[in-house]
Structure formats: C-alpha cells, structure tokens
C-alpha cells in the first residue's frame, strides 16, 4: 500500500446520497482477476451512454474537474456490496480522498486497506463544502493526515477529522493489517488451542 501524508487537490463534487458500490463499479466489470484497471469503468453507467460515449452532465466528464483527486459525495457513500473493487476503481482513477458525512462500514474499511482516505465531516460541513465547490470549481483543499485536518480556502480554521490512531499510522507509513496480524502469531496460536465452541 502507498503512503499517504498530505494532499492538496481540487475537488470533484458528487452531491448524491447513498451512492452504492454497484454505481461505483457495476458487477459486470468484476470479472477481472487482478486489482488494476478498474478506474476506466468507475461510475460506468453514470459516466457513459449505452454507446460507450461519455455522457455530458456527469461530473467526471466535466473538463472543469479533470485531474482532481478529492471526491466530495453525499452521505452514506459506498453502501451495498462489499466489493473492494469500488475502492480500487476510485484509486485507479486517481482519487486519494473521499469526503462525506458518513461512509458505509465495509467501504470505509476497504478504502483504508486500499490507501484511499475516507474523510468524514459533519453534514453541515459537507453542505458548506458543496457550496464552496459550486462557487469555485478550482477550489483546492489540503488534507494533512498527521494533523487530521482538512483546510478550506477562505475558512479561518481547518476542519478536524477523526481517524482511528492505528489506521492513521498504517496510512502514513503504507502498512496494512496483514503485517500487524502476522506479528500476532503467538497470541493467535495460543487462542486456537482452546475453542470449546467447535464440536
């Protein structure tokens, strides 16, 4: 996993609530057996017409937002299927941060395991961010993971966000849970010797 420390980037606004992982990456694109290449089908059915041509009006096709690496999305982002391919698709398309007022549990975990930061703000903060991006499509936000802050131009105080201390260390250093879990070998082995609920 790649390290994540700070990011200064423009924003792609997607003011839709309950975006499910079937929208992020439709099931028919899950036939690949590697992690790479899902980005081209990110939001495929919102992004492309039946003829495969980009749909004007969908934000990923809007030239004003090209190259922006922060996705700003409505509440309950990533609900539905557990497919980690959704996080891979966002990452592969260049996103490193998704900002929302809350995330579906499985997606949040998958994002953290992919090196994609799910950054949770309050609903009023989220709405203020949507308004700020609507007023200035070039608005650049700064995410500082070590400080756990999201800085917004024109706002005196940065937004402070919460993240589990362990997951933060992982992301800062590019570690994942496997390294940690393997270090627990002796505790796991001891535990396995006594599982009285296995009959």
């Amino acid at each position, binding site marked *: 996993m790649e390290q994540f420390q700070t990011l200064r980037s423009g924003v792609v606004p997607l003011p839709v609530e309950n975006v499910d992982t079937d929208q992020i990456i439709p099931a028919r694109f*899950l036939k*690949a057996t590697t992690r790479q290449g899902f980005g081209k089908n990110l939001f495929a059915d919102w992004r492309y017409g039946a003829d495969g041509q980009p749909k004007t009006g969908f934000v990923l096709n809007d030239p004003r937002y090209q190259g922006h690496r922060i996705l700003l999305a409505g509440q309950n982002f990533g609900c539905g299927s557990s497919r980690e391919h959704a996080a891979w698709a966002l990452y592969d398309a260049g996103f490193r941060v998704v900002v929302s007022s809350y995330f579906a549990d499985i997606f949040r975990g998958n994002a953290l395991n992919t090196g994609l930061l799910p950054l949770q703000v309050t609903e009023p903060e989220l709405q203020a961010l949507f308004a700020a991006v609507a007023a200035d499509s070039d608005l650049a936000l700064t995410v500082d993971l070590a400080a756990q802050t999201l800085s917004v131009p024109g706002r005196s105080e940065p937004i402070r966000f919460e993240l589990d201390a362990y997951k933060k260390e992982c992301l800062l250093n590019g570690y994942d849970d*496997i390294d940690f879990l393997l270090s*627990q070998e002796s505790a796991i082995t001891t535990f396995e010797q006594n599982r009285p609920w296995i*009959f």
Partner: protein
Amino acid sequence: MSRTLFDKIWDAHAVRELPGGLTVFYIDRHLIHEVTSPQAFDELTVRGLTLRRPGQMLATADHNVPTRHQNQPIQDPLSRSQVDKLTENCARHGVELYGLGHANQGIVHVIGPELGLTQPGLTIVCGDSHTSTHGAFGAIAFGIGTSQVTQVMASQCLLLDKPRRMRITVDGELAAGVSAKDVILHIIAALGTGGATGYFVEYAGSAIRALSMEGRMTVCNMSIEMGARGGLIAPDATTFDYLQGRPYAPQAENWNRAVAYWQTLPTDADAVFDAEHHFEASAIRPMITFGTNPGLGMPLGATIPVLTDVAEAAGLEKSLRYMGFTAGESLLGQEISHVFIGSCTNSRIEDLRTVAAFVKGRQKAPHVEAIIVPGSQQVARQARAEGLDQVLAAAGFELREPGCSACLAMNEDKIPAGAYCVSTSNRNFEGRQGPGARTLLASPLVAAITAVEGRLVDVAEYVQQLADV
C-alpha cells in the same frame, strides 16, 4: 455483567484487545467464491504466505456462473477464467471446493446453512455483504473486502472495531400472505438504507421466533441493506431442529454438548443495547419497493410518498426518474415484464414451495418472462423430489440451475434496459439487474402473483383464497 448474544460471541473470539480499541478477532469459518477471492490468493502468493487454516475454509462458484447448461464449458471467456482460477487456487492451497457440477454447489449463503457448516456461536466471514445471512443461526457473520479475505487466509483473524449493538423487536402475529421478506422490507423502509450503519443488529420478538430458519435467513440476509454490519437471531429449538443430522453439524455425543453450549448464548434478560426499535407484526403488509435503494419500500397498495425535506426529496426524485414513477402514485396496475425468483435472500426450498403452491393450476401472463433459480443443487434436488419442477414448468416458469443469477447480473441473466422486474432478491440499485433495468423487490408470493397477473395487484384477494385452501 449482562451480555447480549453478540457480546458473548464477540468476547469468545477476541484474541487480543489493543490499546485504542481495535480487537484481533478470530474467524472460525471462511467462505470464498470466484469473484472476490482471486486477488486475495495472488496477494498471498506475492507475499510468500500460505493459508493458515485451509480446513476452516469452503469455496463455491456462484456469482458468475451460468444458470443454463452448467455441464458444458462456460461460454463467456472472462467468467470461465474466473471460475477456472478458483478451481486452480483451491487445488493448489488445499481448500474444499463445491464447484460447478458438484452435488453441494450453490449460492454460498445457501449451502453453508444446508450443509450444517453454519452453527450458533461461530464467527463466519465471506467476501460478500450478504454473509449476514448466517446470523440467523446465532452466529456473528459479516461480509468483508478482498484485503480482509487475504488477512483471514494468512492469519485466520481480522482487526476490527467493535460495532454498536441494536435490537429490533417484532412482536405479534404476521397476517396471512405476509412473509419474512415483508418483515425485513418493512423494517428497512422504516429505518432507511443507512439507518443501522455502525451497528450489529439482533432481531428478537415473538414474530421473529415464529419464523422458520429459511425465514430467519431472509431477515438476517438483508441487514446490510440498512447499513448494519450484520444481523443475528438467538438460537432455539427451531435452529437445533434444522441443524440436527446435517453433514457438518455436530454428531453423536457432540450434539448434546453443542446444544448445551448453544443454549447459553441468547441475550441475558437485562442486557442493554445501544439502540432499540420495536415493530408490530400485525401492521406489516406485503411490501414492494418503488425506488433505487432497499429503504424505498411501501405496502403494495400504498402510494409513493411525497417528501418535504429538500435533500431527501432530491434523492427520491432521482430515484423515481430512473424507475419511471412519480411521487404520490400507486403502483397497483403497473405492468411487469420480468419476474426473478432467486438469490441468497429467497431461493430456498420454502420459497420454491410458496411459489409452486400459488402457481399450481395457474399460468404466468403471456408477456412475462419468469425465471426461478434455486439457491443450490440440494434445493434443486428437493424441488424435483417434491414435483415442484413439474408444477413450475406447467405454469410457464423456467427453472434454472443454481447461482446468484439476475440478482447481480454478472452472468447472462440480465433484465433489459427500461424493463420492470419484480425480484425476490435484495437490491434494487440502478443497473443492478442489468444496465437500465428497473427492479422492484418483493416476497416470493408477491413475485408469483405478479407473474400470473402480469402486473402489480393487491394480493389481499389471493391471500384469502390461499388461507381458505
């Protein structure tokens, strides 16, 4: 200290609690399938790791398999390669595989319970969000991402934060024609598609206890559709009767020891939950969804709500535009061209019996394409043994071979763009059953009635007839 069912299983599986709150959590059973496992096996190989406990794993091919001609090579090269990769990986790493052609093959959440692998007090994971199904037996079961699949393969553990606990109590008696599917659609409509995010849900109350294991699985299956990490139900005599004698269930003297342990699991009388919700069973009606998330459901005869909250109304408006409906309208009379009966929510023998009992002596409407996909080879065999296949065929239903099929439309079983499908599956997301497809979630009975009528009707009249039989 008083504990909930969830707490008891959680505590028993906590290998270590870390400062800061995360828990090294032990997994008893790990189920895998062809779609979310290949990258996990690759990661294992790249890191030079092996499976820690292959004996605690079970694999099947279900998500991406055809439901016709399973005895022939898979036509779609990508699907074939994915299924082949599962076969290779299982052979190389020593994982039991119930693949295509095996007598135990089927949807992963159907075969676990029917083989007796799913038992009270266990922890069960799978790279699939509907793993919550197994909670019906009083197990902690939940879906995980592919990185976590690798973690369980390598360490048999996950690093988890403990979810909050919610109890949903449904008391009273369900009316005739109201099934477990209507119960869970009713609950999700009330709590919303994100209403249980961060929680693990225990379903309780007399109406839940009165459900069969099949019905309980249907309820727990859809826990994820309100954002819950999982759902579970206290094990009782219904659970034990279902499990006894199944191939992987405890045998001989172990059986009595197991039951004695399982009886210690239910929530203590004075245990406290972080959130509680109560529902009255008699108020639940046959349900239908009208929007593009499972929380957008209503009683079949009701009208689509007109929302006043601006943000909510905007979301509903987008949803209704996709579905071709308008706020305030009733869906009675809506023409339906496709009916899909299947998926890990409703493809068990009880579901097939319900459908067959209704369609016996009737015919599907000529313009309706009605397919019924059994959840497993075992369900399919049982259906044939009971003659349900003949009944369904005579009514014009096409009985397919087991798999996830049109629930997620990874294989050829897709609903055409713009077409309306009444489906017994779990998700009505945009494009879920194929690009542009419009899904209305319902129970097997409502699906069967819709297939015969060719449009949505008030089921009350039929229900009376059924009750009189």
